[in-house]
């Protein structure tokens, strides 16, 4: 338990504890409001749609919120000092070296993907994907009020991405990752000398296809196997289109928007899939080429 307290009481980790409580609280709160709206047949927000004057109604709320936040911030700043460690020393690497907490989700992704995917390609897709949301979500309902029934896919996808793939990975990176980025329980003492056997293998090995020959050259069969798997994964996009293209939702969405939605969705789901493959089956790579590995 001593180690858990050590992590939690680190000044820079307090925001994560704060974030965790706020995220859980707000999620429960908004789902409660959404389900209430869905079940009662009218919107709570519509009952409050009459016009009121900004002075004093809104300015008062802003003033009180300002007071509230400033009181918390000043108390927080009086009680807890921002960390200041030893002077910077490029020759002394701390173990573990952790990025600032809001990037720990990305650092955790490095376990499952090479840096060019985890550190560059996926973050770029996160930003582009977020920006694309208003243009690919063609559902006109649910504009300006809490609802779940009217936009299940959108709400579930966003919650999965934000709560699991972003917040939960930050928590995992903070509390469960110790020296060498190995997995430790939060209450477990960090063993800096832990040795973990490198038993990860490439996916093709499970099917008896060796990635490399004895002279370390790539086995073309393994490359073909990997390319086929990845193409097969993204081939789900046209396959699903063929199956559903006559449904109302697909007609409304159109081919271009459908392809963007499906591509972004499958790319997002590639992360949990790779996590399961790595954790359950010790899979290192799905595709190995001379230039990059996936």
């Amino acid at each position, binding site marked *: 338990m001593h180690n858990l307290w050590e992590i939690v009481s680190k000044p*820079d980790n307090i925001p994560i504890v*704060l974030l965790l409580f706020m995220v859980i609280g*707000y999620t429960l709160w*908004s789902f409660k*409001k959404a389900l209430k709206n869905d079940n009662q047949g009218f919107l709570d*927000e519509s009952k*409050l*749609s*009459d*016009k009121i*004057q*900004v*002075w*004093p*109604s809104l300015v008062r*709320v802003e003033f009180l*919120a*300002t007071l509230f*936040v400033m009181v918390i*911030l*000043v108390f*927080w*700043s009086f009680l*807890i*000092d*921002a960390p*200041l*460690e*030893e002077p*910077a*020393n*490029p020759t002394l690497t701390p173990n573990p*070296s*952790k*990025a*600032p*907490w*809001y*990037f720990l989700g990305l650092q955790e992704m490095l376990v499952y993907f*090479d*840096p*060019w995917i*985890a*550190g*560059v390609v996926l973050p770029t897709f996160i*930003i582009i994907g*977020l*920006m694309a*949301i*208003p243009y690919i979500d063609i559902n*006109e309902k*649910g*504009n*300006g*009020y809490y609802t779940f029934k009217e936009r299940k896919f*959108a*709400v579930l996808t966003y919650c999965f991405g*934000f709560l699991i793939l972003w917040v939960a990975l930050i928590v995992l990176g903070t509390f469960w990752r110790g020296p060498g980025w190995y997995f430790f329980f939060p209450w477990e003492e960090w063993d800096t000398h832990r040795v973990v056997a490198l038993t990860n293998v490439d996916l093709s090995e499970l099917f008896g296809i060796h990635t490399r020959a004895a002279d370390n050259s790539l086995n073309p069969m393994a490359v073909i196997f990997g390319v086929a798997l990845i193409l097969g994964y993204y081939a789900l996009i046209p396959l699903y289109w063929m199956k559903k293209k006559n449904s109302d939702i697909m007609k409304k969405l159109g081919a271009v928007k459908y392809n963007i939605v499906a591509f972004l969705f499958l790319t997002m789901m590639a992360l949990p899939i790779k996590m399961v493959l790595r954790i359950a089956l010790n899979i290192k790579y799905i595709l190995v080429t001379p*230039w*990059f590995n996936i």
Partner: protein
Amino acid sequence: MLKLREKLQQTEVWKSIFRHNYQDTNRNRALQIVDNVFLHLHPVRISRHATNIGFTWGMGGITFLLFLVLTITGVILMFYYRPAAEYAYEDMKYLMNDVAFGPLIRNMHRWAAHAMVITVMLHMFRVFLTGSYKPPRQFNWVVGVLLLVLTLLLSFTGYLLPWDQLAIWAVTVGTNMARATPILGHEGPFGAELGMRIDNDIRFVLLGGTQVGPPTLLRFYVGHCIFLPIIASIFMIVHFWRIRKDGGISGPTSNGQE
């Protein structure tokens, strides 16, 4: 006393500053907003649900408040901090031990920065759950995503400035990713084939060297104190102005008209 106040209120100086009296009339309530450059960000009248903290969580406004706190405390910190590797850490020690209210100002800056990252993410979560990015507010969501990225960059560049072990290694871990940028990084796919080396790739441009060193400190300082805040302010202006133009905050009835 009362007479003196009345006299004072009749003077030319008073009248030139305060354009209306303070009797509680609808006209004066409206003038209070319209005649004030800061409050004029708001419309005169809004829907009641827009003031409901259960609907908005207040997260957008709190984010802006924290940005203002960060600007003010940040300027004060700049009086005590020199962005050179020889001085930076010494200045931090000086600030934390010898400057009156130095620790308070620095702590407020640090904790407000962390809090701002949280409130930005929660604001985005709320906007998504209420479907507020839907027409006509699509582009404002895009501006919001840019502001999220700018907030993270501001926080990340500020993380280096104390120039202690925590700072230098967190930034080393973060910027090491840039090595692996496809085409532009020397360890990324097709990087080496296209002539990228450790001393000419994208990470080198970012750090001003092959590792996190004094040039990096200066780059991050300028980015943190000048470049990024200006860019973020510009996008914030657009963000707020668009909220007004799109009919205030979203609601079931207020789409398109103010």
